[in-house]
């Protein structure tokens, strides 16, 4: 059932510098998580994207980039699905 999702995640993980990937539904429940990602962060990731959407409600959901010393977390919402990609800083 989740073969397509697994394939997408595999592709993302094959990208250079990507250390983890998480996909969550609109209720903040984790659909898939691979790499150096904590499953419990699914709810918070969805909440962050929801808050960011409120900045410009008439436009497409924005991509949120959270930056730390070592990693970047990119959060993007698409319909009811929210994805987060963790990248190592080059």
């Amino acid at each position, binding site marked *: 059932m989740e073969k397509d999702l697994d394939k997408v995640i595999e592709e993302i993980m094959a990208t250079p510098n990507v250390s983890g990937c998480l996909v*969550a539904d*609109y*209720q*903040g*429940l*984790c659909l898939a998580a691979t790499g150096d990602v904590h499953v*419990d*962060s*699914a*709810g*918070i990731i*969805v*909440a962050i994207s*929801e808050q960011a959407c409120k900045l410009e409600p008439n436009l497409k959901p924005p991509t949120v980039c959270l930056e730390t010393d070592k990693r970047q977390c990119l959060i993007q919402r698409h319909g009811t699905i929210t994805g987060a990609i963790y990248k190592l800083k080059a």
Partner: protein
Amino acid sequence: MVDDLRKYLNHLLEKVNGLHCILITDRDGVPLVRAVTERAPQLALRPNFISTFGMATDQAGKLGLGRNKTIISMYPSYQVIQMNKLPLVITFIGSDNCNTGHILSLESQIEPFLKDLAAVVVDAP
């Protein structure tokens, strides 16, 4: 201590959109600490509703999957998330479209306060 915890729970209530109340009770549904907004359904705050979780979690533990930790109940306009922290039970009630994952992640933030509270419940006659 209870006042501080209540303030903290109220703070958590504001952080999650659509979350109506957080209750910490014993396994009989007797409230120890509660943070409630006016949107919370009064029927769901009663001990006879909350105490059914005690039985449900015991039964769920018999499925052979290990000890039951959480039960999420979805209703047409509410969702109820109950966590097994026996002798304590944490109950969250939110709207049906509330962020379930965000509520689940509050567990780690409430957990540090539960040790003292659990000791009080265990010592009670």
